């Protein structure tokens, strides 16, 4: 569903992502694990057409990133780090706009808005503003924006960043139930372990390990993903350079 070959991005000559190869299969939850500054968000921004790769190729849902960015945008949902509403916008209005921009009629946009909010246990929240929601509710509203058009691939950038442990665990339950291909970046090891079918570990712009959490732990004789990270990078994730 996502394929990248030698995907590279530099900023003023400084490489942020270096020749990344990756394959994400249909229906899987693939975690992109690494410390802050490792290149996770840059990779996600390339795969969602927000940044042009400096070199390399990638396809998302069969559409080439550079040759067919519109095809990519039709196929994906994207939930950015840090939210996607202004504090005063109304949840329902923004969801309907998002659906309309994906080509749905006004009636269909209304129907989808009600449906996606119900699915995420936000029924009755259409008139609410994000400022009036709890952290977990606000992230679910962000998820609703990413899901409103039933994308084939959903990109989540640090979806539980800043949430308390209970809200994080709740959000994991919702993410597991989405039944679509998900590519999520995270710097939480427990999140990668609990949520992901497969994990790609990125450090300093390079993929340094890939596999299911169980395989990674077995292959590196590690009890946790933190130990895997320590083995492949030589330092713990918590202390990795930002």
């Amino acid at each position, binding site marked *: 569903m996502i394929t990248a070959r030698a995907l590279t991005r530099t900023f003023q000559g400084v490489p942020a992502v270096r020749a990344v190869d990756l394959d994400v299969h249909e229906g899987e939850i693939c975690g992109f694990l690494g410390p802050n500054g490792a290149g996770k968000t840059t990779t996600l921004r390339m795969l*969602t057409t*927000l940044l042009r790769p400096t070199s390399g190729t990638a396809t998302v849902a069969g559409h080439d990133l550079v040759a067919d960015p519109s095809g990519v945008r039709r196929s994906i949902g994207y939930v950015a780090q*840090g*939210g*996607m*509403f202004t504090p005063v916008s109304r949840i329902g*209005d923004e969801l309907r*706009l998002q659906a309309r921009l994906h*080509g749905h009629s006004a009636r269909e946009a209304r129907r989808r808005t009600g449906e996606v909010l119900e699915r995420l246990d936000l029924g009755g929240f259409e008139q609410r503003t994000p400022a009036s929601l709890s952290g977990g509710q606000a992230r679910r509203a962000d998820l609703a924006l990413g899901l409103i058009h039933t994308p084939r691939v959903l990109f989540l950038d640090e979806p539980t960043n800043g949430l308390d442990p209970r809200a994080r665990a709740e959000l994991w339950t919702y993410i597991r139930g989405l039944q679509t291909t998900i590519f999520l970046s995270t710097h939480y090891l427990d999140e990668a372990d609990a949520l992901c079918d497969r994990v790609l570990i990125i450090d300093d712009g390079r993929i340094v390990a890939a596999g299911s959490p169980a395989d990674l732990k077995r292959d590196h004789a590690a009890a946790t993903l933190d130990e895997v990270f320590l083995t492949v990078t030589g330092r713990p994730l918590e202390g990795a350079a930002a």
Partner: protein
Amino acid sequence: MTAFVVAAHYLRETFRNRFVIVFGVVQPGLYLVFFGPVFTGSGVGSWDVLVPGLLMQLALLTCGLTGFNIVFDHRFGVLERLRVTPASRFALLVGRVMKDAVLLLVQATALLVLAVAFGLRASVPGMVAGLALVIVMALGLAALSYVAALTLGDELFPPVAGTAVVPLLLLSGALLPMEGAPAWLDVASQATPFRHVVDALRALFAGSADGLGPAVIGVVLFLAVALPLATHVFGRENA
């Protein structure tokens, strides 16, 4: 079609907050109340000279500073969210600009009604034509405001735009006709499309089409620069 969807969305959001609409007319309204009697009583000009200037002031304040809105959308990730949809960047821009034009139309109509109550006696077809001219000009103004906001960013745009509006307003001759200006100031004034629009508005309000040609040419050239530039900046990565 997408641009209409975007415009309708932002209009709904704007009209929900009536304070924003009213507040836009407050400053020109204050000029009408506190400056109008002095302006008309001192022999500088009549209401049909002052009110076209206040329309220009309203356009500069409403559309020239509309970039504030996109600064917020950028900061809260809304712009990025919209850029990952199949909607063209051009449609996203035009939708916003259309919203600004409609908002200006409502505010300008309110200002004209208020001005008539104060004593403005102008040609009705002239006022309608003048409104149309200002609205078309405002499309370019709003587009440039978005360019400035996306280029300057959150911190620089507010002080820069707030400051830039002042010379543009004064050079347009909105508050005092530029006939008595020194040559260098007159040349600088003529170089802006706003001067020609204000001159044409005054003529139209007086029931004449004098000066309409240069104003239309000025507005067309202004749009020919502003819209492609805004489309380029809106479509650029990281914008």
